[in-house]
């Protein structure tokens, strides 16, 4: 067991009486790449600022390497931050920006020169030392921010959406570079993003947040394959989420079907949410599956097609490499491994149906529903 470098205990923060963080418990092991993932306004930046020392929690404790640091000012913490909007010093050139931290810490001059040169090479900014900050591109400013933060050799680097302002290609390159830098330095990175793909591809641990609360902590695989509630399932990738009833271990009933699954440990006949990822659904001919419906929309996504299939007015999203067309009748085949059963939560019913919600859809929430053709308007597919 590695030692815990950062430990947040029951952190609560309120601004103007409004709770922004609500009972955050988070342990971060030394050397990990941890990502805070969540929608805008969920409290990611606030969490980083608690760790950085820019705000102190209304209640709860912050530990660094086992020591309580609630009252330690930011400038004494062995933590560096890359700010959401870089916050470079406009009056200093690239070199002086990077050297700033070492100078205020009174590092000897020749050592400063050495260490700055080293990080400048690491972030590929050689030749830019004398450049003014406002003459740099966004990507270059980003690199200066990284160099400035790592040159002081912090134990923890906090990165607040460092890639958000970059275009897709540059973003991908920087993801790889950041990961490399983290491996080289061997320090803890706490990385904030609201891009789920970025979170999954870069992290050792993903922390999914919403509404000032941590929804789930786990490896990218755990988070993707075993989301704990409808919010996480929906936020991480695409998912179809339907109401079901857990008949017994390994048997779940939904959309009028009883289907084998691998989940267990629920109460008998407990109402549950069932997640099926679009890519796990096999396309078969309509008579080969109890679930069949009309393809109402097809989008070409490069590697695969993404289609909305209307099964008794519940819109499923599927991804397939098979050629399918709008207006085609197809069957959907689910394997036991492809389903994930979740306990009901406050998010149940809010996500995972690819159509606008309306009363017509209510019957799908009734697991005992037996097919019964009614003439109903077809709700429009969402997005």
């Amino acid at each position, binding site marked *: 067991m590695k030692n815990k470098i950062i430990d947040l205990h029951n952190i609560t923060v309120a601004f103007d009486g409004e709770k922004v963080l609500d009972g955050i418990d988070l342990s971060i092991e030394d050397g990990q790449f941890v990502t805070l993932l969540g929608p805008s306004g969920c409290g990611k930046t606030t969490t980083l600022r608690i760790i950085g020392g820019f705000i102190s929690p209304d209640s709860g404790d912050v530990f660094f390497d086992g020591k309580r640091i609630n009252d330690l000012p930011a400038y004494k913490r062995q933590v560096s931050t890359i700010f959401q909007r870089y916050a470079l010093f*406009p009056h200093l050139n690239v070199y002086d920006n990077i050297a700033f931290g070492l100078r205020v810490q009174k590092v000897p001059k020749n050592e400063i020169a050495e260490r700055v040169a080293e990080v400048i090479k690491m972030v590929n900014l050689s030749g830019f030392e004398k450049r003014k900050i406002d003459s740099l591109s966004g990507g270059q400013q980003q690199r200066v921010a990284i160099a400035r933060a790592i040159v002081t050799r912090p134990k923890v680097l906090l990165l607040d959406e460092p890639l958000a302002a970059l275009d897709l290609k540059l973003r991908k390159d920087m993801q790889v570079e950041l990961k490399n830098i983290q491996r080289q330095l061997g320090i803890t990175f706490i990385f904030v993003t609201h891009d789920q793909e970025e979170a999954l591809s870069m992290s050792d641990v993903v922390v999914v947040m919403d509404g000032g609360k941590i929804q789930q902590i786990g490896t990218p695989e755990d988070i993707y394959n075993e989301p704990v509630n409808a919010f996480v399932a929906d936020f991480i990738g695409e998912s179809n989420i339907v109401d079901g009833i857990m008949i017994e271990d390994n048997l779940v009933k939904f959309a009028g079907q009883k289907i084998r699954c691998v989940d267990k440990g629920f109460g008998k006949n407990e109402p549950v949410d069932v997640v099926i990822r679009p890519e796990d659904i096999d396309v078969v001919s309509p008579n080969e599956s109890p679930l069949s419906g009309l393809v109402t929309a097809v989008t070409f996504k490069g590697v695969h097609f993404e289609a909305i299939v209307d099964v008794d007015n519940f819109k499923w999203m599927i991804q397939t490499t098979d050629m399918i067309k709008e207006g085609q009748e197809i069957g959907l085949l689910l394997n036991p491994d492809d389903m994930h059963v979740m306990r009901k939560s406050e998010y149940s019913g809010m996500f995972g149906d690819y159509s606008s919600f309306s009363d017509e859809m209510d019957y799908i929430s009734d697991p005992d529903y037996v097919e019964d053709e009614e003439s109903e308007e077809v709700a429009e597919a969402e997005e």
Partner: protein
Amino acid sequence: MVKNKKSFFVGSPYYIWMIIFIVVPMLMVAYYSFTDIDGNFTLENIKNLSEYADTFVLSIFLGAVATLICLIIAYPLAFMISRSKASTQKMMIMLVMLPMWMNLLLRTYSWMTIIEDTGIINSLLSKIGIGPFHMINTAGAVVLGMVYNFLPYMILPLYSAMTKIDKNVLEAAEDLGANMFQRVFKVIFPLSVPGVVSGITMVFVPSVSTFYISQKLGGTGYTLIGDVIDTQFLNSGRNMGATLSLVLMVLILLCMLLMNQFASNEEEAMLV
């Protein structure tokens, strides 16, 4: 080309304005400086300048002291205002500007009644058995008048430079280990240099050339260059007064150039 013509056309009222009210008066000042009362060319005025050397020195000295005091008072104040809540900022700036809406003569007169030998301060002090202190007609009184009258012109440019300093940049400095003093000297001050430069200009120039404040609060002992120019124009014709004005202008220009040179080292990598 077409664009230039167009912008010249749009700008023409301003050019005409500038020619009539700036260029022509300057040329007239220069003309009077080098002529005698009959309009004949002469260098007599320039030769006579040496008589006023002491007055120039005194004016620049008192102006510089007043400017320095304004800077010392205004800098922390402007910083505090710029870091407070938006509503507080508005109110504080309002308070700073309020005295500016009152006439300069009135403000100076009121200081007279306050610091006179029989003024408000001394009569209050005499009630508790101290004093009287002689305050009016001293260099201190003149500087006080300058500071009081021109302080807002220091606060406002400092404040506006400081509100432009990104809060995140200060946090970044703190994050990198800079304590409060280091943040002030390595980030806040360099970033506020444009405000310091324009604040100094806006206080120093009117202080050096003031005449009213020195007359009312300095009596006869502290005649400044502005007072001399004033009496010259009123009593002895325009020529010597014009020469003094011209020299004052050149001196102020030199001071400003010097300071800009000084500041540009700080400002080296400053935006804009």
